[in-house]
């Protein structure tokens, strides 16, 4: 009797142990949980950063309208920017930003597309061995270096060419043109390379010349990619701060012509934010400029998505 009892007890503890082992997570499962937790945490941090960035800048940016009761329309259409006297018309900066962005994109696109065609269709060998590394290097050159070149070369050149101070929209355009050129070129090259080989072969087999093939087949089918490249270039130009600030002259007045000092949203922000006190109107007004920058960058982002979707549909059909 006693012996069986002992045996039963022993069996009991044994089965308890087994059930413990079987019902509890193994080391591998626990590891998996921890790993999963860590990776969720990391993505959470990034989401938190994005959310708080959007929240802080938006709440700071709208303070001009909610706390200082400046009307939105007056802010967007006013041409007099003297925040210390309570006048905050942001139009000069908005016009300046759009002017340099569009001008740089318009000048850079033909050059970028031409270079990309050369690299993919005319001389792929030279393109890959020589132009590709140079363009990759240029994408990586810091913007202050471009600004410095602008200040040391472009501004004096413009001064000699057209007179005046040399600072202004045209100098900023030129600096931005050189800055966005490698970005647009390298993305255009990618989209030209993504055109299926048989498109080109079919066109050439029909007796088309190289230019006919390039202009009517390759560029046509790479259009969404090229547009995306141009928009990326514009987004970079719109958000560029220091290089523009160094050559545009930083006068918050409506740009009369291309060769007099003007300013952009970014240049006004870099020069102004350190000189204003947190919570006052001049400071809030600058944050409103930052909010415009943020909204424009969201807009460029959305535009890229729309184009990507359209492009997909085209290929599927």
């Amino acid at each position: 009797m006693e012996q069986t009892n002992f045996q039963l007890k022993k069996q009991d503890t044994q089965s308890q142990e087994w059930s413990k082992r079987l019902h509890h997570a193994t080391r591998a499962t626990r590891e998996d949980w921890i790993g999963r937790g860590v990776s969720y945490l990391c993505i959470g941090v990034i989401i938190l950063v994005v959310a708080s960035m959007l929240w802080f800048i938006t709440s700071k940016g709208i303070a001009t309208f909610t706390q200082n009761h400046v009307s939105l329309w007056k802010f967007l259409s006013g041409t007099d920017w003297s925040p210390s006297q309570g006048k905050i018309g942001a139009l000069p900066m908005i016009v300046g930003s759009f002017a340099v962005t569009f001008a740089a994109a318009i000048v850079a696109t033909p050059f970028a597309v031409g270079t990309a065609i050369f690299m993919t269709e005319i001389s792929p060998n030279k393109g890959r061995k020589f132009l590709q590394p140079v363009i990759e290097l240029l994408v990586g050159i810091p913007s202050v270096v471009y600004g410095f070149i602008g200040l040391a070369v472009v501004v004096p050149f413009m001064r000699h060419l057209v007179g005046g101070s040399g600072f202004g929209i045209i100098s900023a355009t030129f600096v931005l043109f050189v800055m966005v050129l490698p970005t647009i070129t390298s993305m255009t090259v990618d989209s030209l390379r993504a055109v299926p080989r048989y498109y080109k072969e079919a066109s050439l087999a029909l007796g088309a010349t190289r230019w006919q093939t390039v202009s009517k087949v390759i560029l046509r089918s790479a259009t969404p990619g090229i547009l995306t490249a141009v928009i990326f270039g514009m987004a970079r130009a719109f958000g560029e701060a220091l290089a523009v600030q160094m050559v545009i002259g930083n006068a918050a007045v409506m740009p009369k012509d291309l060769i007099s000092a003007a300013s952009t949203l970014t240049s006004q922000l870099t020069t102004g934010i350190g000189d204003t006190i947190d919570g006052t109107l001049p400071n809030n007004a600058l944050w409103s400029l930052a909010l415009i920058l943020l909204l424009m960058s969201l807009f460029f982002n959305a535009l890229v998505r729309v184009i990507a979707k359209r492009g997909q549909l085209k290929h599927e059909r």
Partner: protein
Amino acid sequence: MNAKRKDMIATVIIDLIVAIVVGILFFLLAYILIKGLPHVSWSFLTGATDSFDGTGGIGVQLFNSFYLLVLTMLISIPISLGAGIYLAEYAKDNWRTSLIRSAIEVLSSLPSVVVGLFGFLLFVVKFKIGFSVISGAIALTFFNLPLLTRNIEESLSAVSRSQREAGLSLGLSKWKTEVGIILPVALPGIVTGVVLSAGRVFGEAAALIYTAGQSAPVTNFADWNPMDAASPLNPFRPAETLAVHIWKMNTEGLASNAAALSAAASAVLIIAVLLFNLGARVLGSYLYRRVTASK
């Protein structure tokens, strides 16, 4: 005008465009190197900046740039590694994942000046840390995270499915498979991406002028205790980097030879970026050979 003639004209125009582009690019590089390199010397690279007119060496700035780079990478690599693993391995194909992806895209497309202002608002105004190395490093992290995350995710996803299946069929956990098998295979791509992003971080200035500050207090390079105020390692001191220094010399230039000094500093910056690019290629292909046992 017939098609052949058009073809010829187009080719000539494109050749011309390329010649202009190459001309501009070479002028850029040549200008900086020719104007700058003669002024680069050992004493310029290690010397202190004259606090009155900004002349003199760039020793402190160069150190600050590297210190910020190291701190930024220390913070951003683990986070983006985790986030990259999440996106490549755990994320399901649903609206939540696409929302996360758009958030990362938004972060990567924000102008760096906006990222810098956010850092300024958060660390300098709200937390009152002041212009400091740590504020700068975190601002640079914000700016670096999306790119690095995307790069790591792409490198991980590019690893073939059979490797994953092999790991799981051996009874390894998903995590162990990811860390023990997939990550080493993806390492060359990840390292290339990290080094390239290091080049970007090294040259960034707009995000730093209001976070790491625009002054480079003279530091005592014999004092390596991070808690001392004069120590170069103290994360709470303001730290003007090389890129910020170039900007400052050109906008508030008190120095009579600002142009020559900026050219020299720009040359150093460009050579550093060049080395990062080259390093990325060499290191990437070396690791690839080591890890995959292919030639």
